[in-house]
């Protein structure tokens, strides 16, 4: 490429730029000097006060923003703090059900109560003012730690957690399950917990190491920590059995309308 050629391109750009500036200047209606000075006057009692007025407006905006953040944070904190305070009820039972405190069907259960179903017993406990339904199959022992947490010591449970519920925890031997709005079953077999998620997802952990478990997945503790997640071709037999038992007991003793979906209420 010749030097002359390079200069030609720049000369052409310079000429085009000059024409462009002239054309662009044609679009200007007037000087903005008066508008700027007037805007400065309008923003305060005079030019020297415009900065203060502007700063004040920004400070007000910042204050509103901070207040909004505090409100939201407070709401979340209150929601979290009050999460376990909902009532716990034994809403249905059948056969042999032992409970160390309270225990009549349809009555409240104190936090910390331990429920134990015998060989022919089963029960439904609602927590968090009914937002969580927990079915206990036969030969199942559950400690209701709070309205937001149960501990499964043995047996099988079926759990519906409504989407408007707060965090709900299920602790089983070697396995911790954290949920917000889902349906799942947990059982203890061979001294170890396992969870099968039907809808939504849960967070399952063991030994401090956990992961999310989605619908249709089965999670069990891994030796040495963590969980193994598999996706079986079909739900394990104990899951279907537990769910069916829950629906039968609920339909006959608790939900006459037939509304068995925890999330549909």
């Amino acid at each position, binding site marked *: *490429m010749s030097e002359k*050629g*390079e200069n*030609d*391109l*720049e000369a*052409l*750009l*310079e*000429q*085009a*730029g*000059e*024409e*462009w*500036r*002239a*054309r*662009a*200047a044609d*679009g*200007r*209606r007037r*000087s*903005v*000097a008066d*508008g*700027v*000075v007037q*805007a*400065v006057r309008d*923003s305060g009692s*005079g*030019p*020297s006060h*415009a*900065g203060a007025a*502007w*700063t004040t407006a920004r400070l007000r905006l910042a204050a509103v923003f901070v207040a909004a953040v505090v409100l939201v944070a407070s709401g979340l904190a209150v929601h979290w703090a009050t999460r376990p305070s909902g009532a716990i009820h034994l809403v249905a039972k059948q056969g042999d059900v032992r409970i160390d405190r309270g225990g009549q069907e349809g009555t409240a259960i104190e936090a910390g109560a331990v429920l134990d179903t015998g060989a022919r017993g089963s029960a439904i406990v609602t927590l968090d003012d009914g937002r969580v339904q927990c079915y206990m199959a036969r030969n199942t022992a559950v400690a209701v730690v709070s309205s937001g947490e149960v501990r499964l010591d043995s047996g099988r449970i079926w759990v519906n957690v409504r989407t408007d519920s707060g965090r709900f925890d299920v602790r089983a031997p070697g396995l911790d399950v954290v949920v917000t709005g889902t349906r799942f079953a947990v059982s203890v077999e061979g001294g170890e917990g396992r969870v099968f998620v039907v809808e939504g997802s849960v967070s399952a952990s063991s030994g401090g190491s956990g992961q999310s478990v989605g619908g249709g997945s089965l999670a069990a503790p891994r030796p040495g920590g963590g969980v193994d997640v598999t996706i079986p071709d079909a739900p394990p037999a104990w899951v279907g059995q537990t769910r069916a038992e829950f629906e039968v007991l609920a339909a006959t003793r608790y939900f006459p309308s037939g509304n068995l979906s925890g999330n549909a209420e």
Partner: protein
Amino acid sequence: MVYPPAFPHGAGVPEHADAPGGLPPGLFERFQGGDEQALREVVVLFEARLFGVARLYARSAEDAEEAVQDSFLRLYVYRARIHGPEAVFPWLCATVRREAIRQSGTAWRRHEFPVDPADLVEMQGGVEGEQVRLAEAEYRAEVVRSGLAALRPKEREVILLRYFAGLQLKEIAAMRQIPMGTVGVLIQRALAKMRKRLADRGLEY
């Protein structure tokens, strides 16, 4: 390399071009002190050049004018943060660019200039009875359009700022907060790309 004068049209050309930032002695101090007349003088001094920068980024002349006015208002509000007279115009350029982009919205999110600069070049040539001038302007517009199409957004921007808005290298560097050497490299690379694109079309430059 010889660059064109920053703004050859008279209006807006700093009277004290050799003074720091192009501001007459004492004007910056009066402006920082909140003097209304100083504010007016600063606006008159820079508004034409600033309008040229804004017009590159704004959808219309009206949007550009509004961006220019907002930029001067912000300059006044934040005048205490301006370190010296030489920082005034680059600060205004950076602000007017941001304001115009904010107004033009989606076009810039697609890394496009809302106005094709070649269109304005072409329109300028349309003086009745001057057919030769019109033809030359149309030719230049076509060359500019073809060449700019070969450039990446950042290269296109420095070419337009340099040759169309008429900014100096140091002003582009201060406005975009990149080293002046980088601006020079970008311009040279862009010119080389434009030449190659034009050569592909049989135009030797």
